């Protein structure tokens, strides 16, 4: 059913972009070791295709859903494709974020990093194409094929430096959990088709499941997509896999791939299932909040920069899922406007997180290349040797800390607003719990600021903790361009929230039946979800006011008084023997968090006594979930395997006896 040639173009265009991405990857394989060609030509082309995808998605966002059937795959099982507003929004996010990352990657990959550049190029572009494919798949078969392609290509990307055993181990863990999740998704589709044997999403939409079966499908979807998104307790792969991957890949995985899981959850929850229950929302809220709190608290105690960002991703996904949970609660009680508000907050955060987290991962990549150091304890003072990276990162850091006037603040603002409007729920317990949830969200947001001050302060500020850091080289032009693009995106999201919400409006309209677009259009530059008297926020005026304040101070200083500055050694209360090692460290900045949130950690401490000749201090923070959940499961599997192993004797006589006994048993059974 095509809605005219004009909108027909968008889905075709998306398919074309996917095909071209695959083509770029294949050309990369053909030019396997021609490093300069792959880096300087193919990756920028991939980035340009990302921009094209973003433009197509923007065009399709306001049109009617478009469908197509692609006769590839098994006979009788063609790929059904569909492009609606929800797909378009996520495609837009992928396009914008991936174009920045691709341009960065053009200057990032170096010779001799395990996988040859051409192969890396193939994996990278297959990964991009698969992510776009997930968003337009419209039947379970096509969805699972592209979903698995996405998981596999990202697995190969994670293990790009496969000569390092830890990286192989991280990749294995990632693959394992990705597949356990995929089983959940597959079973979810199995429930959703309700025994009709027709696995198209159109059929699933038409089915009306009983509450029990719908809840089973919902649970499987949360499990499956939660494993991909990194919801607690299925998050354990995330802090391992993201640091292991090369930085542009971490940026894509964290910024974009996690969002495909959010997309899947939204697709099942609001599109394929028809009647949400309030307790689904409560469950999502609980899971989201647990992830958010655990993510931010663990991020605060990390001493490795990419691991810190990985935990921060868990936090952000938690906030997104909490927003979806709240939207579900509202939708279950038929409070559509509020549901739209909460969902808009989540979708907005999907975009901001994609941009600022990609940016931060890219910046760690630049730091890693310049210093070959990922331990926060050995960095510092890079703002002087790498000013470009530092100042661009500062934008990402402020956006990530949820500070005005950047993008992160808007989604936080919308989320808190949707919590504040909650008092009218026809459910007493929920009404009581919601303020506490809002309090936790506020705590998480404030902690995110702490984490980001630690991240930026330890890497870029202070004095270099190692000699070599003073000579670190700033990022190349390509890297700067990629990061700048993402930084501009973060600022734009913060300054023009109303325009962004107008793009989100068709999405919430399609999923919930109402949106904030009209209110947004009415209020113009002012962000006011319901009415101006109730709540409003105008980032541009805000920025202007702040700039006026700064300008006032500047004029006051410059006009009224002289501008003389003298440079001298730091004062530090008159202590002259100050060294770089006396600065607070990443461990030091994590100390108050370790102390306050001690029950959340599994700590191993080694404290020196005053009598030690060589005092040693060591703290290892471990994830208790790993010990409480995964270790026992692993032990159980090992025990079952060893029981099965008893059958294996390694002697041919024994195996012949097994066959004989089986034959005998079958004979007895048949003759009965």
């Amino acid at each position, binding site marked *: 059913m095509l809605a005219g040639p004009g909108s027909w173009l968008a889905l075709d265009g998306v398919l074309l972009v996917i095909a071209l991405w695959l083509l770029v990857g294949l050309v990369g394989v053909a030019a396997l070791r021609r490093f300069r060609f792959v880096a300087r030509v193919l990756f920028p082309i991939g980035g340009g295709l990302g921009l094209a995808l973003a433009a197509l998605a923007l065009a399709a966002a306001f049109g009617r859903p478009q469908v197509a059937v692609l006769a590839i795959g098994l006979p009788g099982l063609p790929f059904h494709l569909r492009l609606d507003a929800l797909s378009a929004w996520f495609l837009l996010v992928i396009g914008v974020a991936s174009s920045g990352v691709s341009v960065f990657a053009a200057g990032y990959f170096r010779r001799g990093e395990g996988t040859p550049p051409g192969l890396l190029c193939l994996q990278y572009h297959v990964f991009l194409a698969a992510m776009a494919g997930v968003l337009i798949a419209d039947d379970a078969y096509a969805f699972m094929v592209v979903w698995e392609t996405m998981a596999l290509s990202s697995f190969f990307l994670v293990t790009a430096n496969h000569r390092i055993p830890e990286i192989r181990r991280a990749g294995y863990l990632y693959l394992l959990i990705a597949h356990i999740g995929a089983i959940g998704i597959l079973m979810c589709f199995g429930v959703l088709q309700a025994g009709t044997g027709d696995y198209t999403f159109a059929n699933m939409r038409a089915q009306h499941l009983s509450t029990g079966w719908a809840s089973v499908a919902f649970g499987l979807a949360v499990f499956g997509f939660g494993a991909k998104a990194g919801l607690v307790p299925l998050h354990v792969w995330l802090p391992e896999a993201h640091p292991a991957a090369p930085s542009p890949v971490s940026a894509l995985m964290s910024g974009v791939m996690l969002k495909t899981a959010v997309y899947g959850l939204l697709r099942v929850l609001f599109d394929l299932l028809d009647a949400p229950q309030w307790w689904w929302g409560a469950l999502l809220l609980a899971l989201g909040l647990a992830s958010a709190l655990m993510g931010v608290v663990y991020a605060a105690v990390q001493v490795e920069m990419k691991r810190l960002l990985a935990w921060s991703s868990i936090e952000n996904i938690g906030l997104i899922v909490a927003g979806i949970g709240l939207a579900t609660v509202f939708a279950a009680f038929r409070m559509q406007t509020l549901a739209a508000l909460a969902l808009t907050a989540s979708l907005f955060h999907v975009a901001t997180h994609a941009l600022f987290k990609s940016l931060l991962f890219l910046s760690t990549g630049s730091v890693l290349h310049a210093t070959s150091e990922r331990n926060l304890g050995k960095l510092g003072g890079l703002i002087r040797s790498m000013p470009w990276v530092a100042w661009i990162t500062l934008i990402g850091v402020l956006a990530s800390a949820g*500070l005005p006037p950047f993008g992160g603040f808007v989604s936080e603002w919308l989320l808190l607003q949707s919590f504040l409007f909650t008092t009218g729920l026809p459910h007493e317990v929920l009404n009581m719990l919601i303020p506490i949830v809002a309090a936790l969200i506020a705590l998480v947001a404030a902690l995110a600021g702490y984490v980001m001050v630690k991240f930026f302060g330890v890497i870029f500020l202070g004095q270099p903790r190692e000699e070599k850091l003073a000579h670190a080289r700033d990022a190349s032009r390509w890297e700067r361009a990629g990061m700048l693009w993402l930084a501009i995106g973060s600022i734009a999201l913060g300054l023009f929230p109303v325009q962004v919400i107008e793009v989100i409006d068709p999405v919430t309209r399609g999923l919930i039946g109402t949106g904030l677009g009209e209110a947004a259009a009415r209020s113009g530059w002012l962000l006011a979800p319901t009415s101006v008297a109730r709540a*409003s926020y105008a980032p541009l005026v805000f920025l202007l006011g702040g700039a006026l304040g700064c300008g006032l101070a500047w004029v006051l200083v410059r006009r009224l008084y002289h501008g003389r500055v003298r440079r001298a050694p730091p004062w530090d209360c008159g202590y002259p023997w100050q060294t770089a090692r006396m600065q607070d460290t990443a461990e030091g900045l994590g100390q108050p968090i370790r102390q306050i949130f001690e029950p959340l950690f599994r700590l191993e401490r080694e404290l020196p006594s005053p009598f030690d000749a060589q005092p040693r201090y060591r703290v290892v923070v471990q994830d208790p979930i790993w010990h409480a959940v995964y270790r026992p499961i692993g032990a159980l599997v090992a025990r079952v395997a060893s029981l099965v192993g008893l059958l294996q004797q390694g002697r041919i006589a024994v195996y012949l006896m097994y066959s004989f006994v089986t034959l005998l048993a079958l004979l007895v059974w048949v003759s009965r």
Partner: protein
Amino acid sequence: MSAWSVFAQVLEVLVALVLAPLLTGWVNQWRALLRNRRPPSVLQPYRLLHKLFVKDSVIAEHASPLFRMAPYVVFGCVTLACGVIPTLSTDLPMSVAADVIALVGLLALARVFIALAAMDVGTAFGTLGARREMLIGFLAEPALLMVLFSVSLISQTTSLATMVHTVTHRALAVYPGLPFAGVAFVMVSLAENARVPVDNPTTHLELTMIHEALILEYSGRHLALMEWAASLKLFAYSCIGLVLFFPWGVAPGPAPGALALALVALVAKLAVGGVALAVFESLSAKMRIFRVPEFLATAFLLAVIGLLVHTLTAA
């Protein structure tokens, strides 16, 4: 938006800029009086600012541009915050641009910049101060938000101007949630403004200082801006407390007569509030830094209880 409301806006920011050091001086005078010392003049903070402005600025040799930029950003943020709070009139052009959540975000932005600037020089005290400031910040910020939320639930809005408007014009209804929120707000304000019992604004004892450690490396005009910003922050917090819990006197519109009356009411309320602050500070002892999380967690819990009480009684 009329010309008068713009006038009220400008007037309000100017009043804040001018009165903020006076408030600090007033509190300091009362603190000295209560301790049986000879008090400094109320105008002492102005003299200090003037002195700092005319002096050369001495900057650490490896300080980055961020270090020099931070005082301006912090000053700009706090000035904007003072402009957002409807201290004189509820009809302000800025009040639609930022609600309470944005106000808290603005103060958080200022705090992040102070902390980053303190880490920039890379001295032991600076980084220690930054860590402590952020620790207090992440504990105080949610508590502050909860306080503001419990008031905003009463007035069904997060816009400060509308909140003040409703609280002023309400019939004398009893809101049992408000006292909890009020106590929590006082605790948060003490922590955020580096007052006793969390921090001591006059201390220079290295191991206990927080605010002083943050601005240790600043001198000259940069220090002046930081000190002025600190005064403005105290002023802003006092005003938030006054307009939320004692809103009487705030002009409903930008009529000049009402503005003048509001100004008088504001000065009177601030004078009383300043004395109360000095009395409280003189009566309490500074607590160890490890007790601060408990102190602020109490504030947080009180604020949440205030919210719960409100939802319970409203239901």
